[in-house]
């Protein structure tokens, strides 16, 4: 058990190291010079102040140090919770910007992922044995699965917002509202949240329900299911067992899928101008704000790692076979 977790932890640490190192290397690999680009925004018409500003910012961002020192400082800062300063929103701290954007993304993704997972699994499992449901959910599921994220979001924004005005087209909450525990603010948050949430939910839902439907069909055909039926077990028990076992691969799928969902989320947040991390990534990328990009990158990596870790633990809990191999590893 200990050894199993040690190995697991080792893997996570290694992945984290690789991620952070790649992350660190990004701005140093990019052609062009972010500091020069920033100073260009001053639109100066003489070289003197340009050079002075350049030196100032170069030093402020630590790009004047030897690479090895930069790498070292990077880790040092990381462990002190310092992700640097954003260029694009200078002189805001990257951590502050992430802290402001993350709640939006989490509010979008966590319910969308979990709800689509839970409902998708449920309905997929039901579709596996009800012809009517199968004939409606399955084609719909495939349709949602085949839809490009970007397009679904665009189409929803077009029809539900631009044409019918049922929902706002963009933003996290209505302009002019001050944040706080007021009904106006919270209802505005929800109102703006719904459409982006719906699109993320639908696409994921399609995937999960189809996956579950197919898995349950496989499980219902397995030997243990046949045996149970041969011994006269009620359909309920057989389906419960099938569902329970079909959930396992879905669970590992969930861990693997997180990265993709985050990618799709960027598109959604861009379409709806939703002020979350996806939008921030996009802005950081287009404005080439590397400190910010790096910060979000690390945030995502940590998020994916933590989610994977949680799923690993849940997996150990729900799949006894894992425990056996853990004992095996310990022996």
């Amino acid at each position, binding site marked *: 058990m200990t050894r199993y977790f040690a190995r697991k932890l080792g893997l996570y640490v290694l992945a984290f190291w690789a991620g952070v190192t790649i992350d660190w290397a990004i701005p140093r690999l*990019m*052609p*062009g010079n*972010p500091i*020069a*680009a920033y*100073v*260009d925004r*001053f*639109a*100066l*018409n*003489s*070289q003197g*102040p340009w*050079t*002075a500003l*350049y030196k*100032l910012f170069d030093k*402020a961002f630590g790009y004047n140090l030897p690479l090895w020192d930069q790498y070292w400082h990077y880790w040092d800062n990381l462990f002190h919770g310092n992700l640097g300063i*954003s260029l*694009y*929103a*200078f*002189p*805001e701290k990257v951590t502050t910007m992430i*802290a*402001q954007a*993350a*709640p939006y993304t989490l*509010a979008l993704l*966590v*319910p969308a992922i*979990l709800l689509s997972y*839970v409902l998708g699994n449920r309905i997929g499992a039901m579709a596996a044995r009800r012809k009517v449901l199968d004939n409606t959910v399955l084609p719909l599921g495939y349709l949602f699965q085949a839809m490009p994220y970007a397009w679904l979001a665009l189409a929803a924004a077009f029809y539900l*917002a631009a044409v019918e005005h049922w929902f706002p*087209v*963009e*933003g*996290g909450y209505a*302009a*002019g509202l*001050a*944040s*706080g*525990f007021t009904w*106006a*603010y*919270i209802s505005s*948050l*929800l109102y703006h949240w719904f459409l982006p949430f719906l699109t993320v939910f639908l696409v994921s839902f399609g995937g999960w329900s189809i996956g579950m439907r197919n898995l349950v069909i496989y499980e219902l055909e397995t030997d243990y299911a046949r045996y149970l039926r041969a011994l006269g077990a009620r359909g309920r028990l057989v389906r*419960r067992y099938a*569902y*329970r076992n079909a*959930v396992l691969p879905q669970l590992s799928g969930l861990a693997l899928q997180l990265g993709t969902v985050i990618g799709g989320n960027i598109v959604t947040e*861009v379409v709806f*101008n939703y*002020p979350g991390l996806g939008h921030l990534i996009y802005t950081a990328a287009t*404005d*080439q704000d590397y400190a910010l990009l790096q910060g979000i990158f690390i945030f995502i990596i940590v998020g994916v790692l933590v989610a994977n870790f949680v799923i690993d633990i849940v997996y150990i809990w729900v799949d006894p076979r894992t425990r056996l191999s853990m004992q095996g590893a310990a022996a």
Partner: protein
Amino acid sequence: MINKTSALTRLGAAITAAALVAPMVTFVASGSAGATSLQAPASFPRNETLYTSGTAYSPPTNFNPLDGGSRYTGTIGLLYEPLFLYNPITNKYIPWLATNGTWSGSTYTLHVRNGVKWSNGAPLTGADVAFTIGLAKTNPAVPYSSLAPYIKSVSANGNTVTVNFTSPPPYTDWQDFLWQNAVLPKVVFSKLSASEQVTSANYARGKSPVATGPMLLVSTSQSQACYEDNANWWGIKQLGLKFHFKYLCDIVNGSNSVELSALLSNTIDWSNNFLPGINTLMTTGGDSSFLTTYYPKSPYMLSANTVWLEMNTTKAPFNNVNFRKAVAYGINTQSIVTGVYDGIVKAANPVGLLPNLDSYVNRGVVNKYGFHYDPSLAKKYLAKSGYKGQALTIEVPNGWTDWMAAQDIIAQDLNSIGVKVNAITPSANAKTQHMINGSYDMMLDNNAQADATPWSYFDRVYQLPIQKNDGAQLNVERFSDPATWALVQKAATTPTTDKAALNSIYSKIETSFLQRLPEVPLWYNGAWFQGNTTYWKNYPSSTSSSDQYTPVMWGNWLGAMTTVYALANLRPAK
């Protein structure tokens, strides 16, 4: 026996429920942490608030007038103010924090306006102005530090400030300083180190920066900054200017289309976004009769800056003037204006100076030497140019889709006269890098601000010596023309009041420009402005019977042109 399936389901349900609620809580909590309240109302009453957009591309995190890269919209104009304003429509200066300023030999004497108060209650004095000017000498990172070698001394006596210059004084540069830079509060900035003066945010949460302007900063969030009228502003008494909105909220830009949605749904009153399709909406009328632009017809917008085709003149074939002429004659700018922009921009005049500087453009010279679209003439020039058919590239930053469309047209046009051109789209940074170090063939560029004189325009074209790594993007085409450069320098030290002398110098420069074409001006980007008349009326317009003001909240326009007047002109629609 534990039934894990249902336990698992219950766990899932619990997590889902928690996930739905938790972010709501975090977001409200973090929202409150992110927003600063200076007694900000819970919501800004719609009919007392002017919503503006189109100028800020990053969240309001910086209100330092010396940080030209990140300061938020309104830092200069609403909070800080310059000594003079410049009206590009009438091409005149308006005394602002200064009541007047005069040259006497190499000495410039400024009179600072009486009765102006900083928002901390202290009066604005000559000492603040002198301190601001003095920074040019003590801090090389302030934008006007190029004045340093010319300033011998600065002194203040009460509200009178005297600046002694070397002879001849840098008339034009100084003139630009007077309207393009804000006066700083000495009490705040003198306490900062040189680097802090430039890099500090000048903004502590919960406090509006110490400034003199018509508004106070009342709240910021990730997506907007809101200002409230400053009841103690000097302009109310002295100029009779009063804002009829209580709040002004400037919203951080989303994409163009997002801002168009916001404008159409009355979320935004005043938009300075480039909104493709605005002409369609304007011409179809009907539903969109609530929209207004500066000109009621094409081009709808004032011109804001010039887009050039830059050619790297150190390389063959661009070092040959005939080749550059072939290019100039070979591009159908009109098809870009109508095809890409659907008529919301104007083709540039061959010199490229913006319309506000028309009085400096010598028509005779332009008629005689100016170029126009003429493919057959282009082919003739090409034949003389010694072009050997090598493949050339033209670059624009990836993602600048209007430029990418224009780039396609240019490439097609040039290919059709026999120049082999490939369109490439590096990242914006990479493109800038190519420009700075001269490793490009051709590119589109518009890196120059609207100005009150042609000087900065030609300074940018002819600056010598050519820098190996030219960060300030001067003479990016790397064109060496010492004679014309001497003329540009001469213009800089000619008194701005001596219009005859200046005109004669600029005519010579224009002649040289058109004869040798170091750059090819293509079209003017617009001073994008769209107003929504649902809540507010009297937007700036060319048809306005009263004075016409600049309709743009961009840094220099709000800060130093007549946008403040335009804001004061607005009235509630109902």
